[in-house]
């Protein structure tokens, strides 16, 4: 047994190709953030008229994230579920509790931005606790299932996981519905993967759609209005951002206007470097650029999938599955929103959209996946 473990360490499978791919996507993201944000930055006093204002902030977050990714990837991910020292508590549980606490703190002391309290200020740096919740949910769900995988074939076992996860998800949902939705789908996805009774999820998905539909029809005006905007994107006065995004996408054509040549980023699309950055990619790089970006994400997802199915244990496999769902879901949702395929929700494009917390946490997640890849026994 001992010699076997040594053998694993020597011939560890560290997915360098994926590491390179991630770094490439992140670097591309920095270029696009600079392209999309420089006009806004240099015309507003609050950004000191500095064209590179957003680029600088994002670069720091990316460097921090890459550092975290490399560190995390070198540690054994299984340390997360080991009891710390003599205490009976595990790291994964700590992270789970921490995310709930942070989410509650942000509700009371958070910085309000665009009408929602989503930001916490720690040591002069703002960050979004909801991003922490994403990684915490991925890890804790995986851990719960790993502890009792057979329970996932029974309704009660699934309910247990759901109840545990309901707490952080609801805490996020109060201020940020779309992120809560993403987290919920990640959790449900992990459960789906681990369960033998797939048909159950089919029914559950149908039920959720039904309930969601009812909620939309009978629910508050805010969400009904979203649907109104979605259906009348070209005429509704509040559809401005998406409408402008559509203009950007469509004016890109086959090969785009060229990097840095977007017209729509010149104040027409508000905050083009955030959730709308894909529209600027389309305008500047055209359909080919857009397909290239989607392809990069598909390759990344494929790499994570390979690691997931080859993971040494269920915990590692489920972590990879969670990260995979997280990235894929956000890519799909983001593009759906900017092409007006679904009603607008605030979902960013992973690794590329401006947002320090998001990119750092995503890179840390990639560190976890690399860590799992590091434990794959080569046969």
């Amino acid at each position, binding site marked *: 047994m001992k010699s076997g473990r040594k053998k694993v360490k020597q011939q560890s499978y560290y997915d360098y190709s994926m590491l390179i791919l991630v770094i490439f996507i992140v670097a591309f993201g920095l270029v696009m953030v600079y392209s999309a944000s420089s006009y806004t930055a240099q015309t507003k006093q609050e950004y000191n008229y500095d064209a590179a204002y957003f680029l600088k902030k994002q670069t720091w977050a990316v460097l921090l994230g890459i550092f975290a990714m490399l560190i995390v990837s070198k540690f054994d991910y299984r340390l997360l579920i080991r009891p710390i020292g003599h205490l009976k508590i595990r790291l994964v549980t700590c992270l789970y509790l921490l995310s709930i606490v942070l989410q509650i703190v942000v509700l009371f002391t958070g910085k309000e931005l665009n009408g929602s309290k989503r930001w916490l200020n720690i040591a002069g740096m703002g960050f979004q606790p909801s991003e922490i919740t994403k990684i915490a949910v991925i890890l804790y769900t995986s851990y719960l299932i790993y502890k009792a995988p057979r329970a996932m074939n029974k309704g009660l076992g699934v309910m247990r996981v759901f109840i545990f996860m309901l707490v952080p998800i609801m805490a996020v949902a109060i201020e940020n519905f779309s992120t809560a939705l993403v987290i919920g789908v990640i959790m449900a996805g992990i459960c789906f*993967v681990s369960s033998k009774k797939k048909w159950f999820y089919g029914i559950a998905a149908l039920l959720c759609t039904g309930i969601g539909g009812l909620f939309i029809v009978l629910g508050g005006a805010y969400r009904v209005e979203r649907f109104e905007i979605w259906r009348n994107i070209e005429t509704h006065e509040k559809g401005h951002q998406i409408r402008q995004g559509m*203009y950007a996408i*469509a004016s890109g054509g086959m090969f785009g206007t060229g990097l840095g040549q977007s017209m*729509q980023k010149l104040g027409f699309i508000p905050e083009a470097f955030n959730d709308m950055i894909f529209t600027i990619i389309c305008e500047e790089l055209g359909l080919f650029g857009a397909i290239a970006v989607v392809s990069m*994400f598909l390759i990344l997802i494929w790499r994570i*999938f390979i690691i997931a199915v080859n*993971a*040494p244990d269920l915990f590692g496999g489920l972590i990879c599955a969670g990260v995979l769902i997280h990235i894929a879901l956000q890519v*799909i949702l983001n593009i759906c929103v900017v092409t007006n*395929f679904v009603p607008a929700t605030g979902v960013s494009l992973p690794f590329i959209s401006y947002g320090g917390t998001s990119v750092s946490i995503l890179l840390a997640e990639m560190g976890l996946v690399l860590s799992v890849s590091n434990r794959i026994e080569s046969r």
Partner: protein
Amino acid sequence: MSVINLSKEGRIKTFQKRGMAFVVIMFITLAVVLICRLSYLMICKADYYGEIARELHERERAVKAKRGVLYDRNGTVIAGNVSVSTISVIHSQIKEPERVIEVLSKELGLDAEYVRKRVEKISSREKVKSNVPKETSDIIREYNLAGVMVDEDYKRYYPYSTLASHVIGFTGADNQGIIGLEVTYDKYLQGQDGAILTLTNARGIEIENAAENRKEPVNGKGLLLSLDINIQQYAEQAAKKVLEQKQAKAASIIVMNPQNGEIYAMVTTPEFDLNNPFSAPETDSDGTQNGDYENKSGKKLSSDELNAMWRNPCISNTYEPGSTFKIITAAAALEENVVKLDDTFSCPGFITVEDRKIRCHKAGGHGAETFKQGIMNSCNPVFITIGSRLGVDNFYKYLNRFKVLNKTGVDLPGEAGTIIHKQKNVGAVELATVSFGQSFQITPLRLMATASSIVNGGHTVIPHFGVGIVDDETDRIEKIQYESESGVVSEEVSQTMRSLLEAVVSEGTGKKAYVEGFHIGGKTGTSEKLPRRNGKYIASCLGFAPAENPTVMALVLVDEPQGIYYGGTIAAPVIGELFENILPYLGIEKDSAVSLEE
């Protein structure tokens, strides 16, 4: 190390791998669907959204088209354009604000504080003054101040300022006609504005080095009018004179060619200043003074007062024509053969129609008289008699044939229609009053157009000003066609009417319109304004010359003269005076035989 569970329980099972594969395949499928959606947007919808986006990015700087020029019949410009400039400042480009304020306030004659406010306002572009004369803007341009923009523009300019103001009309800020001929011929005069298209960002700031897209303006076409500034000026003087002498409320004169309907002059006093159409006319203005194109801070008028001032009573007001209408009754009776020139009538000073006693204007009556004398005396009982001989149906047949019930179709906006009893409601009393020009209302121009068709040999005319559309680039004139119907009255009746009306001027009530050496026909009229017996009258006189083949016809209306109000006393001399001036001008020669006779 037993914590790390490597037992079979902790391994990934095949169904879990399948689950992961299912998730990945689902995402790949979704990604493919999205790529299809993107392709649809970026290929099929590219033109549609691209066009909207370009409109969004392009800013249009209009290049104004020159408005077409109005020429009178001699080719004199009566409505042209002058170059003016708009001075504006661009806050972000100003380098020496103090100097800019100093120069602009000095050259434009503006208050320094007013300029300072504009210079210091943070906006992309702030207008300081518009309609600045070219000389001033040239001086400002020579200072070469950073951040000061001089944009050239055209402004409508009327060299004769008040001349024929109601007819010519004026234009608004967007180069569109507001009243008069400027409205009727707007589509020819306007031309098409050009544009310079530049790319801008969302705040409207132009992007440097972006290609400019230029669309050249198409200048408006010119318009040749039948109006003659000399006749118009004669007429204006005559109108002004009678207005002052009789202290009347208003005086109108129309001069027209009865053969083809070309209007030589149309005057309504008081006229207003076309270069300053929103301020009240200056009472002591000499009418020909060149107004400058600065906005005078004249008295502010309410919109009702403005509309009253701009109203052209010659076409927009109706009145009871009174005795001048007897021309129509006489022509109808002659054409229908119900009366002969030597038929005799007897006028005791009144006539009884049904139970109503209708008076003649001569209290004692005209006694026994022929039809010809009846016209010369303008005797009411004579016309009531021939009216009843015609009967209602015949009378209305001729009103229709003479187009009295229709609008004239003059090329001016705002023409009023005829107000008259419905044929089925006309009894003997109504027929009697209509026969001598009462109890219905027509416009002065309608009367002239119908009188023209009676004396010109019997063809209808459409009174008009527009003669041709002038292409200034090729100097070609495209004639404007007007319809004409013949057979209104026979040539014989027309001939009879001309000699009858000549007799009115040479011997009858129109004696004062007589000009020595000319054959002039005419008819006078006096209408009591409604309500009756308030002492307000309109004195009118219609005249034409030469009587045997009329080429000029004039109608004078004096509204509410003080003192004597008879058309023959007040309006007829105006016709005489006018003809004395314009007949030689129009090249109508004196007939020496007439002079000898007298």
